[in-house]
């Protein structure tokens, strides 16, 4: 074997080794993050966490108001955001597939998809909190809804595009108007995909903190008034984790574990629903 050949082989081995090592480190990192969460958060996880309110420092308690607040705001955000997202995605795939408007909206939507969420919080502060004069759960929900919209637009359009055109043509040939074609044909075929999109959107917003900090703020009482400041899991984690009190830090870890488990469950569920479609 000559020197050049050996050098090429050596380089190849190094590259392969580096690729394997990088993957191992990436996976190891995931394991470290999850491991840390379980290590610090698991023993705090009990029914009490869901039943008792967030405590003052030094006392024991749970995260009930935070969990309830998160559920309310997430639910409302999905309620506001999903219809807009689905309709917009429908236009882009069914009516305006070759429109200029569609390509512009797709471009803008992709940017909104990765836009910094704290900017969304500032936006909602400017247009809702400031005119209303106080923080409120409803403005938190609106901020989250703005994050939901691009996710749902994207998946709806993608999924409707996967529906074979021959199905639409067959329906149209039978005389169905277009609105019926996509309500009864396209949507039925793409339903699983659209549900996946909504689940992913829920996963995305259930951990969002930045847009809630100055819209919903926080609330240590069990308020479910959407016109008043409202607690949420991420905001409580933020407050408790940075506090000097050990009890609060413990609760923050437990809250973090709850969110992570919920998010992982949602994204795995979304994948399971979407998976059979991908193969067909």
């Amino acid at each position: 074997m000559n020197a050049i050949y050996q050098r090429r082989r050596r380089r190849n081995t190094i590259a392969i080794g580096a690729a394997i090592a990088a993957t191992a480190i990436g996976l190891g990192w995931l394991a470290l993050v999850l491991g840390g969460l379980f290590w610090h958060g698991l023993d705090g996880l009990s029914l009490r966490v869901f039943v008792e309110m967030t405590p003052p420092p030094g006392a024991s308690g749970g995260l009930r108001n935070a969990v309830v607040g998160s559920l309310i705001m997430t639910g409302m955000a999905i309620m506001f955001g999903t219809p807009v997202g689905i309709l917009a995605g429908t236009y882009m795939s069914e009516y305006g597939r070759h429109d200029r408007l569609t390509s512009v909206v797709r471009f803008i939507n992709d940017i909104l998809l990765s836009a910094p969420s704290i900017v969304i919080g500032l936006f909602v502060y400017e247009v809702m909190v400031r005119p209303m004069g106080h923080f409120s759960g409803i403005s938190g929900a609106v901020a989250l809804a703005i994050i939901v919209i691009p996710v749902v637009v994207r998946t709806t359009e993608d999924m409707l595009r996967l529906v074979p055109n021959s199905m639409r043509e067959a329906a149209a040939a039978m005389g169905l108007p277009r609105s019926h074609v996509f309500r009864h044909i396209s949507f039925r075929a793409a339903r699983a995909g659209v549900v996946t999109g909504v689940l992913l959107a829920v996963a995305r917003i259930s951990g969002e903190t930045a847009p809630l900090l100055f819209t919903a703020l926080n609330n240590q009482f069990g308020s479910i008034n959407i016109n008043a400041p409202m607690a949420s899991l991420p905001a409580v984690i933020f407050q408790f984790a940075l506090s000097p009190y050990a009890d609060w830090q413990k609760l923050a870890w437990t809250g973090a574990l709850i969110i992570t488990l919920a998010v992982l469950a949602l994204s795995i569920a979304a994948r399971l629903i979407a998976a059979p479609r991908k193969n067909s």
Partner: protein
Amino acid sequence: MALQAGGMAMDTASRVRALARFRMGDALFRQITRAAAVAVLILLGGVILALVEGAWPALRTFGVSFLATQSWNPVTEKFGALAPIYGTLVTSLIAMVIAVPFGLLIALFLTELCPKMLRRPIGIAIELLAGIPSIIYGIWGLFVLAPFLQVYVQPALIATLGDVPGIGYLFAGPPYGIGMLTAGLILAIMVLPFITSIARDVFEAVPAVLKEAAYGLGCTMWEVIRHVVLPYTRVGVIGGVMLGLGRALGETMAVTFVIGNAHKIMPSLFAPGTTISATIANEFTEAVGGLYTSSLVALGLILFVITFIVLAAARYLLLRIEKRSGG
């Protein structure tokens, strides 16, 4: 139609009515969905307008010097964005320096090396990293990563690299644990999945014929990657990197936990600093006085403009590669 007999005429009439109803329903639905699509555009326009309006008092007071001054003093109401901008850029740079090679190597592993059976589970596991909320990385970074860096990594770096002329100042000062380097590391973990998944997608789009031809000439796997796969996918990879960069620039909660929040530009990577998003997250609810709030909104506007440009460039590059592969 007038020639048709009674029953038929009724039928026709109802059919015409039904048709008209369909047509109207169709037009209505078209307009509704179109309005929703336009709403997405309005949303972006609204965000920009609201930010400009909110930032106006600060921009009018400080002018261009807002971008170039370091002072951040709520008492004397002197605000400058230089320190947060510097922190944002430096932490993102650290993140990209770490995440880009790792992301590309993982993508290469997944497309070229990985046994078929493991491909999907490993891919999903990496994508799960992307699904973990920012605040989780924050709490983990603060309580697990920062102490580890403080005790083991930073003293070692100070001892070894701290005296190297030229770069030594980057590794000077006491090891706090939290600071620019820690924030950059956390960001690297967070953007890694974005870079990996886009790189994997574009690597998979390389026609097998090209790779086979290179293998046929006797190229090693590395040579195929280096001289066929990477040149072919360059545009897409850059697009993916920019997308990751856009994420890193705007990331808030994770950074807020570990950056240390100091409005000062310090040369050392171990020193605490701040980023645009961390400043807003920390100070916005406590900001009193119109100018203070407005300055924070102005920071948000700057952040939005920077990320908008980066993300738009990323999308443009990715669109180009999509068009080429006819996707």
